[in-house]
Structures are given as structure tokens and as C-alpha cells.
């Protein structure tokens, strides 16, 4: 089997394991989906919070930044004592990774709103909440969406590591391929993961364009 070219291996492996690939892809998508969902909700909230409480800016953005510097595998390891082995730990770690780009972009997007627009809004008698929802968030949407897109694409790649702590996903094939020395098996995990990343990139890209207010488009 090892004499076959890498492409022949891939074809052979996928004929053998296509059902497993579909299942693993589904698990992979779930890992990405749930970790992203929590990261978006919390990241946007944190991003808004730090624009309102400037004292928290360093703590939150610095803290999430530090999280990002921890190697993915190590972070997964740290999570095991808390959530045990499996999906929960993987989602928690992936969520922590996605938090920074989303929180940071939310913060930057709101901060970048023209001070004159904000002053006019306040001067016309809008409350802080009205300014946030009618002015700041709509104007920050393109930047926030860009943060989500970045986080999602990184997330798809990181999610392959979930296999190391038994959470499954497309990383299983990569892991297996490495231990058995079958390159085709590695590709069987890597190719769908890469496709998934591209699909997400395109999806969030168009979502970004679609949610950008008309008056902001070039």
C-alpha cells in the first residue's frame, strides 16, 4: 500500500472510509459551530463592554491576547482537568482562541466610529443604548464581521487538534495517518478541513458584504 502515490492512497482511503469522513466532518462542523457561537456572543459583548468601561480594555484585550499565544495543544491540555476528555474541552479551547479576534474587532469597530457621528447622536438626545444599537454597532458591523471570519477560518484549522483529546472531527484521520505513516489518510482529514475553511471564508465574506450598511459601501 505504501508504494502507491499519495493521490492513489487518497482515492483508496476515501473509497474505504467515506462514511467515516462524512461523520467526522459533521463533528468538525459542530465543534466549529458551537465554539464560534459562544465566541461571537461573548466576544461581541466583551468588545462592547470594553468600549464602555475603558479600565477593562487592557485586561480584556490583553487577557484574550495571552490566550492566543498559548500553543493550541497546550491549551487543550490545560482544559482537560476542567472539562475532562472530549467535545466539551475542545469547544472550550476553540472558543478561547476565537475570542480575541472577535472582541478586538468589535472594540476597534466601535472605536473607529467617527467621533462627530457619536457627538451628533448624543447631542440629538440619543441614549447610550440607542447610540450603541442605532449608530455604533451598524457602523462597526463590517469590522466585527471581518473578525468573525478570521476567527472561523483559524477555528477550522485548530479544530483538527481536537482529535488529540478524543473529541473527534477531521483531525482523527490526520492523527491516524501520522501514526500509521499513511500520507493519504492525512489528506483525507486535511482536504475536507481546508475545503471547510474556504467555504466559511466565502460564506462570512458574503455575509460581511450583505450586512454592511448601504451608505458605507464604496
Amino acid at each position: 500500500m505504501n508504494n502507491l502515490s499519495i493521490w492513489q492512497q487518497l482515492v483508496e482511503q476515501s473509497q474505504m472510509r467515506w462514511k467515516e469522513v462524512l461523520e467526522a466532518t459533521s463533528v468538525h462542523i459542530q465543534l466549529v459551530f458551537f465554539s464560534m457561537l459562544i465566541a461571537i456572543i461573548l466576544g461581541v459583548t466583551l468588545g462592547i463592554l470594553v468600549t464602555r468601561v475603558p479600565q477593562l480594555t487592557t485586561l480584556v484585550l490583553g487577557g484574550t491576547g495571552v490566550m492566543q499565544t498559548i500553543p493550541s495543544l497546550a491549551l487543550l491540555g490545560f482544559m482537560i482537568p476542567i472539562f475532562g476528555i472530549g467535545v466539551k474541552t475542545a469547544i472550550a479551547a476553540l472558543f478561547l482562541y476565537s475570542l480575541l479576534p472577535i472582541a478586538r474587532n468589535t472594540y476597534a469597530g466601535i472605536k473607529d466610529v467617527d467621533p462627530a457621528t457619536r457627538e451628533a447622536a448624543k447631542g440629538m438626545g440619543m441614549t447610550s443604548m440607542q447610540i450603541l444599537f442605532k449608530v455604533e454597532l451598524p457602523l462597526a458591523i463590517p469590522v466585527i464581521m471581518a473578525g468573525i471570519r478570521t476567527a472561523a477560518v483559524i477555528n477550522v484549522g485548530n479544530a483538527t487538534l481536537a482529535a488529540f483529546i478524543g473529541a473527534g472531527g477531521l483531525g482523527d484521520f490526520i492523527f491516524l495517518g501520522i501514526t500509521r505513516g499513511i500520507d493519504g489518510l492525512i489528506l483525507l482529514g486535511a482536504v475536507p478541513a481546508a475545503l471547510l475553511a474556504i467555504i466559511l471564508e466565502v460564506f462570512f465574506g458574503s455575509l460581511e458584504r450583505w450586512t454592511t450598511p448601504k451608505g458605507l459601501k464604496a
Partner: protein
Amino acid sequence: MLKFENVSKVYEDGFKAVDSVSFDIPKGELLVLIGPSGSGKSTTMKMINRMEPHTSGKISINGKDNNSYVASELRRGIGYVIQQVGLFPHYTIEKNIAIVPQLNGWAPDKIKTRVHELLEMVGLDPEIYASRYPKELSGGQQQRVGIARALASDPEIILMDEPFSALDPLTREQLQGELISLQKKLNKTIIFVTHDMDEALKMGDRIAIMKDGKLLQLDTPEKLLHEPAHGFVEEFIGKHRIIQNPELMPVIDIMSESVVTTLPQSSPEKAISLIRQRKITDLIIVDESKTLLGIVSAYDVIQKVNSIRSIAEIMQPIGHILQDSASAKDAIIMMDESPFGLIPIVDESKKVIGLVTRGSLLAALSSQWTEAEVVAV
């Protein structure tokens, strides 16, 4: 309408941005706040709608303390126009103007009617502009929308923070003129901040000059120019303004006070000798109390010297006269129409106090002009 009583703003670090300012603005007045940067003029304005809360003293609007309102409600009742305009880029022009009416819960069709009315008022065709976005408009058009937005819910008071400073000179001039005519129609109470003295003199019913947080003088443009209460005020206004602006130059400053007058019962011989002595072409006729009666031209006296006994017989009424409160500009305009080429200046009781002739007008204007040239060099 709007009253400041010993209002101060002291920052936490102890910096006094506004120092015990007191004034009163009647309804319908356009008050200009002017001063160098850091003088506290913008802060003073922004304390009215509490964009900058004051730290002591009292600001009342129609007798009610502005601190007794919820801030956002207070602001919704006061128009606000800023230099950078601050239109919402994600809203159409129509939606931008509709912001305050919307916050106040107006019905949608009432808002639409109002927005179209306002767009027309500021000279933008609603058919073309209502559905556009701010970035599709020029700076001048954007500020027109800014003004329409401030007027939307028909507030009594409008605050304008250097609204035209970022515009090119031509557009600025145009918008200044339009605001003046708009104000004549709407009669709002406007607080207008600027650092441009020409703009202040053009726009202000009264002008408040500020420096280092203190209000130095608050007066009409005419009074500021002629009775600056403070060396700084004089310096800040600049002497050349008076020359550039004959509208603001009082006619009494350019008239000649030595008017050759005589009584109506004077003989024509006496009149002729006066005319020759003083080298004049016309003689002003007054009664004993110096009240203006008419005019006699040298030509007529010489022609009729033998056929009349007193000059009263050839005296002509004079229609072109000016009160002492008139400006040099009034004299320039009237001079064109005056058949005698002179304008007597009278006080309230019609007593003659001076005379403006073509010659004195030209001399006064040209001497100030050359002075200005010297200053400019």
C-alpha cells in the same frame, strides 16, 4: 429665554474652562460666542444641552433649570449643529433628518412631510436628495442637511458649534446668508460659536467675546466696534473691520461737524457772502433752535439776488437727510440719490448736527482705507 447665572466649569485637574459667566438671551436672538481657542466658547455653548455639564452656577431655559431634565430629553428639545456635521453615514438623508422626530415618536407620514418641508427649506430638492446617502453630498450640502436635522422637531433653541468653519469660503458665505434669512422666518434662539470675527459681525444680533473662560463683553456688533470694553476686545476685533464694513461705521464718524447754516430770514446778500467765504455750493437753512428747514443753492441765490428779500423765498425742502444713528453705508447709498450731493445729519429733534458731502464721504473712506493699508503692511 436662556439664562446663565455665575456658571462655571472646573475640570477635575482644577482647570477652569468657564469662569463665572452670566448672561441672558431673549427669545429669537442670534447670539455669537467668539474667542480664541481655549477661551471656553464651545464649552459655554455645550453646557446648555449638557454635552459639557457645568460644575457650578445655574443655567435656566424658560425659567427651568437645565439640570432638572433627563439629559437625553433636554437634548432632544434643543437643535444641535456641529462643525463636522456628523450625519449618520448608514442612514439616508431622509432618515438622518428624521432622527429626532423618530426619537420623539412622531407618526411616519408626519415625519415624511416634515422632512420634505425641511429639505426644501434648506434648498435641497427632496426628490433628488431624500434617498441619497451623506457621502454622496458635498460638504455644503451635508451641512444644509445638518441644519435641517437640527430644525426637525422645531426646537426653540439651536446650538451651532462653528457650523461653517470647515466649508470653502464661497459655500460658507452662501450658507451664512441662508441662515440669516432662515432665522428671519423662524425666529429661533440661536447660540452660534465661531472663531471668525467677520462671521460674528455678519451673523450676530449680539456678540459675546470670551477669553480664558471669562466673558469680556456682550454687546451688539456696533457697540463692540465702537465701545470695546477691554483692550483685548479691541485687539481681537481688529481695527480694520470697521473700514471693511461701512455698514458698521456710524455716519457721525464721517460727517463734518462745521455746517454752514443760516436763518431763513437772512438777506440774499448775506447768503452770498457766506457762500463765498466758506466756498460752499449750498446753504443749509435752520431756525433759531437749529432745526432743519431746507436748503438754498448758491446758484439760485446769485440768480435771484435782486428779486428776493429773504432767502426763505427760494428755500427748497430737503428730503435726503439721515438720523445720527445711521451708518456710513446708508450715507453712501443715499448720496447717489441726493439732488444736492449732500446729506444733513440730524438728531432726534431734527436739529442739524453735521453734514456729509460727496467730498467728506470720500475723504473719510479713503483715509481709513490708507490707514488699513498701512496696518496690513
